[in-house]
């Protein structure tokens, strides 16, 4: 569904991404992992068109996304740290985004209800805690039933209940055949979710394997262990 | 009978006889000759030939093309129903060569054009007591031309031409070497000069309107001791020019919208001993331009919304400018030198920012009407483009506080706090 071809990006002296190639398919749930500053967020932003790559192309369903915007209709994005206009209320933000993505499809209000958004509608964004802001981000990401979900550290800052609700939602969507791209530092969290693992280091793609293959390769019995194994191996 | 009484009697008798004979004479001689279709005379020329002094020739409605008509008798030529005399662009229409002529109620059009003989629609040669009134003059070379005339009156004529080139056009009312004229209530437009005087003295120019003339609305030279009262000059090519003249009085005239590099509300060149009062100078490039003028008294005039209220060349001396209103002018006063031998007092300057602590109606701080930028523009005219920019305002303010470039003697020590009601 998403093809990443020879993507390179440099920020000043830092080579954020170096000729990364990836193929992502529907109903996959891909964990994007790597040490801090390895280029995860940059890769996500390039897929979303927020950052322009120096070289290479991103194809969405076979179409180059450069200078395109319509393909984002099929993507739900939850940023690592959601930044919103401070003086707008939750309700206004939801309204505005709804207005912009005036899709025909019925809205997915599951998370909206579960997170109790109704009571927050009148609140200004600047008054919200980090966790609540993340809830708004999550609601927005799932609201339009997108075919692709890109979740950057989705559970960071969420309380355990909310994190659990979100996880369940992710599984549900994966089972419904969506492509899910997820980054997280909490490896245990990814255990039940991911079908594939992508490992980036210093802007280079080190590994792209299915979770099962990875476990059997490393001989570990959990994903978390195999990834730790992987990290150690790379380090040596 | 005393000697004196007898002589009185004798005088009385003579007067009686004279009066009687006059009456008889008039009754017999002063006839009315009618000209027109179906009248006694079909043309003006035959009627004139048949007329005597003091006859009245009534010309009825129609178009008369009789070439040059010479009036050499003291007749009254009167149009009934505005008959048209047409010069066919070849002839001078009416040549007045007798005194005591009256020309009234005609439309005169298309006089001949010739640079040498200066033909006019009506030309008066060496005559006195001629009255020209209520005529309409259209598209003539010269309109009304008086030379060596005296005690003549030109009244309520409408004079209009439509030439574009100065050289193709003569003056509306042109007077040369004349004396004691009265030019009253005429309207002149589209000529080279509206009213032109040269060597004309002791005359009155009252209630005339001269506008849209190619060169000057009013132009006079070597014409001493004339009075210009309540005239209106608007949008003439170069405004009004007055040169080489003494003892002129100008009262209550309006000079308006004379725009251009060399256009002036009034240009005074080599004038002396004149008096200007109650005139309005509105929206002219330059209200008054003084060049070589001496002993002029300028008082109670309004200068408003002119580019330059007045420009005094350095060769002017002993002029008094007092009790005038200067309002909304871009520059109130400009000069080209640093020597100032003229007197400003008690004028109202709207740019004055002083105060009046003793409440005598006069500002306590002297006013320097010459702005720095007017000095700069004087030397470098295109710099006008920068006027009102912040830089320039700053410069001007600085100069007002610490004068350095503008002459110190250029000052009104008693500026008025409130405008005069004029």
């Amino acid at each position, binding site marked *: 569904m998403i093809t990443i071809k020879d993507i390179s990006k440099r*920020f000043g002296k830092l080579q954020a991404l170096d000729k990364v190639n990836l193929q992502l398919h529907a109903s996959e749930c891909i964990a994007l992992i790597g040490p801090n500053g390895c280029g995860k967020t940059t890769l996500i*932003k390039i897929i*979303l*068109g*927020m*950052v*322009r790559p120096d070289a290479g192309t991103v194809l969405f369903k076979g179409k180059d996304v450069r*200078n395109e*915007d*319509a*393909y*984002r*209709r099929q993507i739900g*994005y939850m*940023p690592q740290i959601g*930044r*919103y*206009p*401070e*003086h*707008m209320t939750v309700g*206004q*933000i939801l309204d*505005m*985004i709804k*207005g*912009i*993505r005036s899709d025909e499809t019925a809205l997915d209000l599951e998370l909206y209800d579960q997170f109790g958004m109704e009571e927050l509608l009148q609140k200004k964004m600047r008054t919200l805690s980090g966790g609540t802001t993340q809830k708004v981000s999550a609601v927005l990401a799932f609201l339009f039933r997108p075919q692709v979900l890109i979740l950057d550290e989705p559970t960071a800052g969420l309380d355990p209940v909310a994190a659990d609700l979100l996880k369940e939602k992710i599984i549900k969507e994966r089972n419904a055949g969506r492509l899910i791209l997820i980054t997280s530092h909490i490896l245990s969290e990814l255990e039940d979710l991911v079908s594939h693992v992508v490992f980036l280091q210093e802007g280079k793609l080190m590994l792209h394997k299915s979770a099962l293959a990875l476990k059997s390769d490393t001989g570990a019995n959990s994903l978390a262990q195999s990834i730790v194994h992987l990290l150690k191996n790379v380090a040596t | 009978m005393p000697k004196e009484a007898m002589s009185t009697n004798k005088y009385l008798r003579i007067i009686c006889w004279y009066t009687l004979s006059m009456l008889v004479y008039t009754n017999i001689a002063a006839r009315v000759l009618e000209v027109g279709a179906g009248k006694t005379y079909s043309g003006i020329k035959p009627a004139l030939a048949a007329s005597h002094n003091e006859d009245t020739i009534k010309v009825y409605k129609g178009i008369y093309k009789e070439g040059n008509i010479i009036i050499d008798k003291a007749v009254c030529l009167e149009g009934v129903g505005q008959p048209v005399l047409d010069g066919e662009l070849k002839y001078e229409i009416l040549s007045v060569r007798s005194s005591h002529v009256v020309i009234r109620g005609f439309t005169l059009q298309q006089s001949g054009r010739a640079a040498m003989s200066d033909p006019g629609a009506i030309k008066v040669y060496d005559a006195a007591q001629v009255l020209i009134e209520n005529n309409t003059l259209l598209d003539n070379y010269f309109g009304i031309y008086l030379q060596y005339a005296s005690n003549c009156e030109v009244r309520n004529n409408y004079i209009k031409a439509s030439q574009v080139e100065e050289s193709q056009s003569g003056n509306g009312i042109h007077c040369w070497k004349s004396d004691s004229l009265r030019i009253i209530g005429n309207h002149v437009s589209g000529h080279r000069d509206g009213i032109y005087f040269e060597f004309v003295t002791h005359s009155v120019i009252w209630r005339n309107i001269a506008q849209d003339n190619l060169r000057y609305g009013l132009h006079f030279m070597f014409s001493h001791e004339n009075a210009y009262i309540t005239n209106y000059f608007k949008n003439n090519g170069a405004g009004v020019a007055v040169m080489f003249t003494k003892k002129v009085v100008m009262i209550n005239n309006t000079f308006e*919208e004379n*725009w*251009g*590099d060399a256009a002036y509300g009034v240009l005074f060149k080599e004038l002396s001993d004149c008096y200007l009062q109650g005139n309005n100078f509105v*929206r*002219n*490039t*330059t209200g008054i331009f003084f060049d070589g003028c001496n002993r002029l008294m300028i008082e109670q005039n309004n200068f408003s*919304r*002119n*580019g*330059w209220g007045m420009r005094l060349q350095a060769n002017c001396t002993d002029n008094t400018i007092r009790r005038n209103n200067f*309002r*909304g002018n*871009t*520059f109130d006063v400009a000069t080209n030198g640093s020597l100032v031998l003229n007197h400003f007092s008690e004028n109202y300057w*709207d740019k004055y920012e002083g105060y009046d602590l003793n409440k005598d109606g006069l500002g306590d701080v002297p006013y320097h009407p010459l702005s720095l930028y007017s000095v700069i*523009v004087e*030397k*470098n*005219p*295109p710099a*006008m*483009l*920068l*006027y*009102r*920019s*912040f*830089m*320039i*305002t700053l410069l001007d303010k600085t100069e007002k506080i610490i004068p350095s470039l503008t002459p110190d003697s250029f000052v009104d020590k008693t500026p008025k706090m409130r405008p005069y009601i004029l």
Partner: protein
Amino acid sequence: MIRILKYVVIDIVKNKIIIAYTLMLALFSWSAFGLEDNTAKGLLTVLNLVLLTVPLMSVLFATIYVYNSGEFIELLVSQPVKRSAIWRALFSGLSLSMVMAFLTGVGIPLLVYTDVGTALIMLLSGSLLSVIFVAIAFLSAVIARDKAKGIGVSILLWLYFALLFDGLVLFLFFQFADYPIEKIVVLLSALSPVDLCRILILLRLDVSAMMGYTGAVFKNFFGSNGGLVVSFLLLVLWVIMPFYFSLRRFKKKDL
């Protein structure tokens, strides 16, 4: 774009600074006309508002607003919206608000106290200057990533157009007083929108002097209807050019 524009305008109109700006303009212009019995003097005050205050406020407010809209832009960029639509909406919203503030603040006293022609040319110039300096603000905001730097660039640009440019031209006048530089100066004035506006207003206020003195080139250019149209086209170009360049850069910008 209209939908985004709606939110931008609602947001700006609620902004305290823009309300204060409107009130300040109103206060200055009403008192300028009210305190002086002389309309010409009041007009001068308003002229300085138009030529100095309006550009400064527009450029500063717009620059700061664009930087503060970082989150807003980021949020929208990840949505299926064209980047150009976001930028245009922000620009239109800001321009609209600045022009509205100017017209409410200055427009009413101008129309009350002066003749329609003068009022219209003042209002048109002020509105155009507002939009032009919003466009300039967009350019500096997109060039400098850092907020403080961006504001600095904006203030410098304002300083240049409002003050320094005239100084430079004046310097040219004195340096080349003996040469016929009139034509060049007319051309030069096109390089500063503030000067273009000033000359257009000058032609109205000081028409008597302007018609007389600066000679044929000037009269033929600015005095004619054609010149008027050209001047306004130039001003419109001053809106379009900075905005176009800022848009081009914004489209390629990494967020």
